């Protein structure tokens, strides 16, 4: 099992969620976050004093998937989250050693 973490642009969330559901993803966890990267922020003035908005709003998706779904999920994510403009985000994949479904105590693939 893998944990796929994707940082995407907020306005892509709905599309991504629907596309993921279409390829069989049944659950995910979503957080608001701020990103810093090649996409530059903007400098603003507040009462004449400068401030830089350099952390831009992003959405983080965490999706635990069985090994055989990994490719499909990554592909779907990359396609639907892509706007082609800088700042589209990243996908990170890490190994998941164990998963437990709290409600039932089921573990690993059957817990997903």
């Amino acid at each position, binding site marked *: 099992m893998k944990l796929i973490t994707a940082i995407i642009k*907020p*306005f892509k969330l709905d599309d991504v969620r629907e596309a993921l559901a279409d390829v069989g993803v049944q659950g995910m966890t979503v957080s*608001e976050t701020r990103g810093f990267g090649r996409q530059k922020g903007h400098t*603003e003035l507040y009462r004449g004093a400068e401030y830089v908005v350099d952390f831009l709003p992003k959405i983080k998706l965490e999706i635990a998937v069985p090994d055989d779904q990994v490719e499909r999920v990554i592909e779907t994510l990359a396609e639907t989250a892509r706007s082609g403009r800088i700042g589209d985000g990243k996908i990170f994949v890490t190994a998941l050693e164990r998963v437990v479904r709290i409600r039932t105590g089921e573990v690993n693939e059957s817990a997903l």
Partner: protein
Amino acid sequence: MTEIEYALNTFYLLVCAALVMWMAAGFTMLEAGLVRARNTVEILTKNVALYAIACLMYFLIGYQLMYPGEGVNAFWPGIGFGVSAEHALADVTAEGSEIAFSSLADFMFQVVFVATAMSIVSGAVAERMKLWAFLVFAVVMTGVIYPWQGYWSWGGGLLSDLGYSDYAGGGIVHMAGAAAALAGVLLLGPRAGKYTPDGRPRAIPGANLPLATLGMFILWMGWFGFNGGSELAVAGIGSANAVAKVFVNTNLAAAAGLVAALLLARFLFGKADLTMALNGALAGLVSITAGPSTPDPGLAVLIGAAGGLLVVVSILGLDRIRIDDPVGAISVHGVCGILGLLVVPLSNDEASLVGQLAGIGLIGGFVFVTSLAVWAALKATIGIRVHPDDERAGLDFAECGMEAYPDFAHGGD
């Protein structure tokens, strides 16, 4: 007029003017509560600026346009500047004088009305219009369009003789504001994401409902000045009784509008929709504004309730035909403004249905067409709609360079 009557009337008008000025804060809070957080600074800026512009433009040319004394003809008032001369003691107290109050108090009371009309426009075009285009429109609307049509009725122009009756401005102020708003919305189009690809409206919840509720209360309170002051005199038994009746009817119509909208929304949606209740109260207020001094309180309740029902239906209807009005201003002020004008003859013999229809057609038509022309000119020149990226990210950074709630994490994109 005795000195003390003149003084009491003047003071009464000034108190009412302060209450109507306060309505500007009400519109601001209502709108700031009903847009998304990312468009809040822009709508705040728009509202404070439009109030200021309205005051300055109406002072500059609007007031003399609307009340020229002697107009050029029934349609065109002619140009004038500033305010009228103040009344001298001898003139006021002269035998048979009908000078009832200070002319500057009159200006003060009138100037806050034009701000109200302009505030109505602001909410309808929220979350997508360019700030500076809006402010340019405000200059024309408050300096020319509003006072020009105002001349026809209150200023002694062509509507004065047609039996058009509009006590506190249900048509002259509210419907006029809504007509300008409608013209703007039609040229502007709905907010990005407001409709699904197959045309169904999507919900775009307002970011701060306590603010919206506060706005409604402020408007309700201010309306006592708006309607109550429109009697233009209080210093006699007849006028004092009239003002009291206006207060009572205004309050009851609002209450009935609120309850009616709340119940209808409960029936339609299965839940208590706060925003519809707020709109219902305002609908009740608008509905009674064209004639709050003639109906019995029981009739005022019915008129307010009709407004409350109508506003829900109208909001749903406009939403369906893709007229995207984030705060419901067109329904509240336009549709219910018309309702209010049409029911005046029920209790007021001096009003006729024909006269009311004439007023609706002339005022509504004139304001709509001239506004459309101004909006179109703006669209063709500086543009009226922000860039789609700015709309998505929120107008606040793009137009004002700051956020309304920078300390709070929020879901802008």
